[in-house]
């Protein structure tokens, strides 16, 4: 050991950076959450998948020479056929033992996802449908945000009689079979986007309001809310400036869950014939239509289902990832 005397000199208290060691990480919450989120492989895959699907929804319909709404009286009910891939024995345009492209002499035609009974290109229809499904997703998010959050916050924060009445209303709303209400909307207001949106509005927000309410109930006992009260903050300020930012994580997670629900709901409506007006077609409509020919022309149902399922899967994965990311208790180290 180096025993030089001067090493044992006393030194002044060092005001070094070490003095002020930060406790906890220095990254802000959202960044931290993002870091945790990106660590989650599933969520990342989901995000990428959604990105790709979104991209295709934007450009998909334009990257081949077909169009989503043009009838073709000749090329009807064709199975998928893709150049190059056909050489591998898949996507070669055959349906069982039968290959209509060869039988009917469409040797130069390629429909990547095949065509439907009206000879429309399924590739284009699927991506147009995806657009609509995204659109519905946006609407669902909007509804969740506005009604669900507002309702849940008010109900949870004010508690007491207000809560009691509001929860009764929710109970009644959930007690009425959705279908009755939806059908009514569709019948009274004509089927279409507006009706679907209104239908979503009736009950689509309930689970969000539940989550928000329980979060608010939990949060409102926190001391920082009391502190805000002692500083004279109004209920409005406390709700929107203090509570809301703190439950935003949960809200985002819940939103992610409500997106697939909305998309699904629309496809259910399509199945019972209360969907969009033709020739508009969401993924749900395509699946519902394709479903009827599933054992005849499976491609009609497979492609939209795959896209829908991947979309749902991705949103769910993202939602799971976000939930983990926003919940420090769950942190995957």
């Amino acid at each position, binding site marked *: 050991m180096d025993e030089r005397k001067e090493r044992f000199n006393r030194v002044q208290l060092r005001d070094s950076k070490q003095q002020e060691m930060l406790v906890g990480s220095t990254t802000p919450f959202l960044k931290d959450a993002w870091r945790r989120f990106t660590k989650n492989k599933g969520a990342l895959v989901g995000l990428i998948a959604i990105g790709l699907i979104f991209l295709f929804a934007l450009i998909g319909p334009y990257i081949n020479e077909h169009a989503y709404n043009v009838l073709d009286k000749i090329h009807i009910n064709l199975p998928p056929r893709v150049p190059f891939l056909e050489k591998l024995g898949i996507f070669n345009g055959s349906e069982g033992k039968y290959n209509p492209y060869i039988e009917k002499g469409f040797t130069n035609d390629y429909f990547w996802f095949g065509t439907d009974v009206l000879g429309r290109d399924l590739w284009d229809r699927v991506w147009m449908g995806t657009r609509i499904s995204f659109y519905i997703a946006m609407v669902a998010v909007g509804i969740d945000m506005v009604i669900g959050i507002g309702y849940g916050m008010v109900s949870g924060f004010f508690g007491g009689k207000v809560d009691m009445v509001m929860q009764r209303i929710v109970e009644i709303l959930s007690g009425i079979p959705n279908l009755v209400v939806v059908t009514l909307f569709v*019948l009274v207001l004509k089927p279409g986007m507006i009706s679907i949106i209104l239908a979503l509005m009736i009950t689509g927000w309930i689970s969000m309001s539940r989550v928000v309410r329980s979060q608010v109930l939990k949060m409102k006992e926190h001391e920082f809310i009391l502190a805000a009260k002692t500083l004279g903050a109004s209920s409005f300020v406390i709700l929107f400036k203090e509570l809301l930012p703190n439950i935003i994580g949960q809200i985002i997670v819940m939103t992610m869950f409500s997106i697939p629900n909305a998309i699904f709901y629309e496809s259910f409506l399509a199945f019972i014939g209360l969907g969009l007006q033709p020739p508009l077609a969401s993924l749900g409509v395509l699946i519902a239509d394709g479903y009827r020919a599933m054992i005849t022309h499976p491609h009609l149902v497979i492609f939209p289902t795959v896209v829908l399922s991947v979309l749902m899967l991705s949103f769910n994965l993202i939602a799971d990832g976000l939930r983990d990311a926003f919940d420090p208790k769950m942190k995957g180290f």
Partner: protein
Amino acid sequence: SPAKEDTEQVLRIAKDNDVSSLDTNVATDGLSFEVIKTFTEGLMEYDAEGNIVPGVALDYEVSADGTVYTFNLRDDAKWSNGDPVTAADFVFSWRRLVDPALATEYSYMAEGIMIKNATAVIKGEKPLTDLGVAALDETTFQVTLDAAVPYFIQLMTFPVFHPLNEAFVTAKGDAYAKSADALISNGPWVVTEWTEGTKIRVEKNDTYWNADAIKLDAIEFLIIKDYQTAALQFENGEVDMAKISADLVDRYKDEDFFETKKLGYTWYVAPNQLVAELQNENLRLALATSFDKSFITDSILHDGSNVADYIVPIGLATGPDGKDFRDGAKTFLSFDAAKALEYWNAAKAELGVDTLTLELLVDDAADTKAVSEFLQTEWQTNLPGLTVTIQVQPKKNRLQLMRDGTYQLGLTRWGPDYADPFTYLGDLFQTGVNYNYGRFSDAEYDALVQSTAPGGSLSTDAAARWVALHEAEAVLLEQAGILPTWQSGEAMLVNPDVSGYEFHVVGQPSYRNVVKK
């Protein structure tokens, strides 16, 4: 048990619908009638070729003016409880049909065939006993009409006019026809099982007078609403007959068990003449001729449907000459894009517009939705400047909207009630009738049709009447009062071992001669 199955001849039929009632007077839908037909028998029945043959009646006489029919009933006809089938059973049934207390929907049939006092009785203005029916004795049943009805006999096959066992019906009271054991049979089979939403089974009725001619021991109507499930069940050998939707035809069209049959429905687009633009004949003609009907029948539906360039369907009615109404009749409004464009240009000039937007109202059924999309594109491409939007509504709503006249173009269909062109031409398009959704109105047409109506000037002159009906159709279609589109067919999967089933364009299928190997 399987052993019994082997020796038993059971025909299993998949049905996409459920029965709504097995009460002969109350039922309204096709399947209900089909099932009712298996366990009841009317005065007259159809044979395999669609000819009217005696049922419970041995024969009948008509008065010279065609208003009094006297039926002689066979004396060996029995109810399944052993009671004989008598003229009183018909009187009871027919009175029950028009009983205002029961308010049956099909009471209008009694008015339609102009039974004496029917209208007043239905309205409750006259007692039931005033209805023009009488049991002259046990086996003689007499009907008095207000006027000659050319298709009267033919309607005697219709289930609402079948007999009812008064004692049995009264004993069961409210419970009558609500379950298998509250039913009684005078037909080839008797209902033994009726499970809500699943299945109806009828078994051979040994008391039926012609029981020996019946080969099938039982028929099961299985309610399978999904066509694909029914088809898979058929492939699995679980059912012998299954209707399939157009979507499935491609899968089966080359199989030997695939069959199509023609139905009596004609689909047409009814332009609403309350809409100013649609009063323009050229526009209607343009719309009527600008879409390729054969694509609809051959590519979208491919279920045996055929292009309809007419309104009275093929196979509906046989004329006095013994030929089908359509045989040698004219066709109208065939697809002709070039001609359509001329009409369209004329219409635009007359209307003083360059562009036009119309809305097409359709059902939410899969087929009609696809057809509507096709129509939309065809119209928009062949008639440049025309924009067509589609409104899909559940059927009940579509009907309501059309009845109210609050629509523009509506795709609709009509099913015949009896085998006479009048069921189309008379009931649908006269000025002011109920089902004249498009408010078509033409004096010449009305006059022609009136002359062929029951009690009309030609009602007893069959040949002249036939000519008038042909002329009426021409008047209607030459101005495109409606836009005929296709005549329905139905695609079916039928077990090749099964033979002898009979379908009729009008009326219910019959299983009397079915044999299953």
